[in-house]
């Protein structure tokens, strides 16, 4: 039976979908991309992710996998030959899972606050984001990537958030590069890799999307 791989995704706004696109590209997996209109979710999406009704969803030979970090590990375990996302050593794997989980716990919430809050609340969120990025810089150290010499699980988990940095910086009136130059240097190294640059949305378009969302929700 021919292998069938489908990715249900939303190209512009979902950082989580971007993670999966990079992973599939790194592994050289051929797949069918289906763009979802989140205002009008397809029957397929609702059938494949009835619990969260969210993208991304990877459908492999008719069976759905949901939640981006779960999808990444599934991709890594199903197509093991090329470009390992997780290291082979259990302790290194645990560290990779820890940091990916850290990013998920911190960034979405902080990003949203920076874009929509004002005054003290916004300042606190900005400071927390910078502190988190500095922590990640410490974890990266001298390595070119979090995965070592090559892209790994943590790189894929974090790099899509970069597409929102222009939005954060403009809404929050600050420069992430000034505060965290090593982090930005790492994102530039990632962007030199084709699987990353082809999978990430254009930050200008993402910023436009953020402004549109704010307007729609009546936020100044």
């Amino acid at each position, binding site marked *: 039976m021919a292998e069938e791989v489908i990715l249900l995704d939303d190209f512009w706004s979902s950082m989580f979908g971007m993670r999966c696109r990079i992973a599939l590209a790194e592994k050289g997996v051929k797949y069918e991309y289906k763009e979802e209109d989140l205002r009008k979710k397809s029957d397929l999406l609702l059938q494949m992710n009835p*619990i969260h009704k969210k993208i991304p969803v990877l459908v*492999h030979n008719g*069976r759905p*996998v*949901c*939640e981006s970090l*779960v*999808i990444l*590990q*599934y991709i890594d*375990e*199903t197509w093991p030959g090329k470009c390992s996302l997780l290291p082979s050593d*259990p*302790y290194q*794997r*645990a*560290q990779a*899972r*820890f940091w990916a*989980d*850290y990013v998920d716990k911190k960034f979405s919430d902080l990003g949203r606050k920076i874009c929509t809050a004002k005054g003290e609340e916004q300042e606190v969120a900005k400071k927390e984001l910078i502190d988190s990025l500095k*922590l990640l810089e410490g974890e990266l150290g001298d390595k070119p990537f979090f995965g070592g010499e090559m892209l790994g699980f943590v790189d894929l988990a974090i790099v899509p958030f970069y597409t929102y940095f222009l939005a954060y910086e403009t809404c929050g009136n600050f420069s992430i590069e000034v505060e965290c130059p090593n982090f930005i240097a790492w994102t530039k190294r990632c962007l030199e890799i084709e699987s990353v640059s082809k999978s990430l949305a254009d930050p200008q378009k993402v910023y436009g999307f953020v402004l549109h969302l704010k307007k729609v929700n009546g936020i100044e």
Partner: protein
Amino acid sequence: MGEELKLFGVWGSPFSRRIEIALKIKGVEYEYLEEDIFHNKSALLLKYNPVHKKIPVLVHNGKPIAESQVILEYIDETWNDNPILPRDPYKRAMARFWAKFIDEKCVPAIWKSFMSGGPEREKANEEACELLSTLEGELKGKKFFGGETVGFVDIVASFIGHWVGPFQEAVGVDLLTEDKFPMLCKWAEEFKNCPVIKENLPPRDKILAFFKAQLEMLTSFYKNRV
């Protein structure tokens, strides 16, 4: 070199008990260190988990691992006997999905339901019931979430199986009841009666006494965290 394994935990915490259950399933010896997590975290804990400053933390030959689901996977990958996660990638993905669902959706909704008051509680209760209903659906007549034996999802669901009962009694909320969730309640009984689980859960009456005595402290801890 002898293997050195330490677990920093709290006697009443479902998160640190998960780790103890996993280590017992694997038949691995470890040293347990009790933390005073609410009032006085030890210097060692802060050294081993500077990012979150929480328990559980497993320290294996001096190397720390934090976050309970990360620790569970580490244990499963380090000691191969009695697997906790399935071997098949799709089944592993399903186990990870449901474990995430429990920790990211069910647990916070249950806490919200117990910690809220008035009309907010009713709404939170409804949400929690919907989520528990979804979880019950996943059991699909199996003895355990893991099939015939206890697995990753069962271990993660231990909060629901063993802590929700005394918690709801202390707070006076009827959330997990046999008429609403017959499958989940049956699962809870099977789970708690497994020898390795039974020996590693804190006594129900001790948990109940703790919740009753510390409700005010827990409520303020919850409000400050959110």
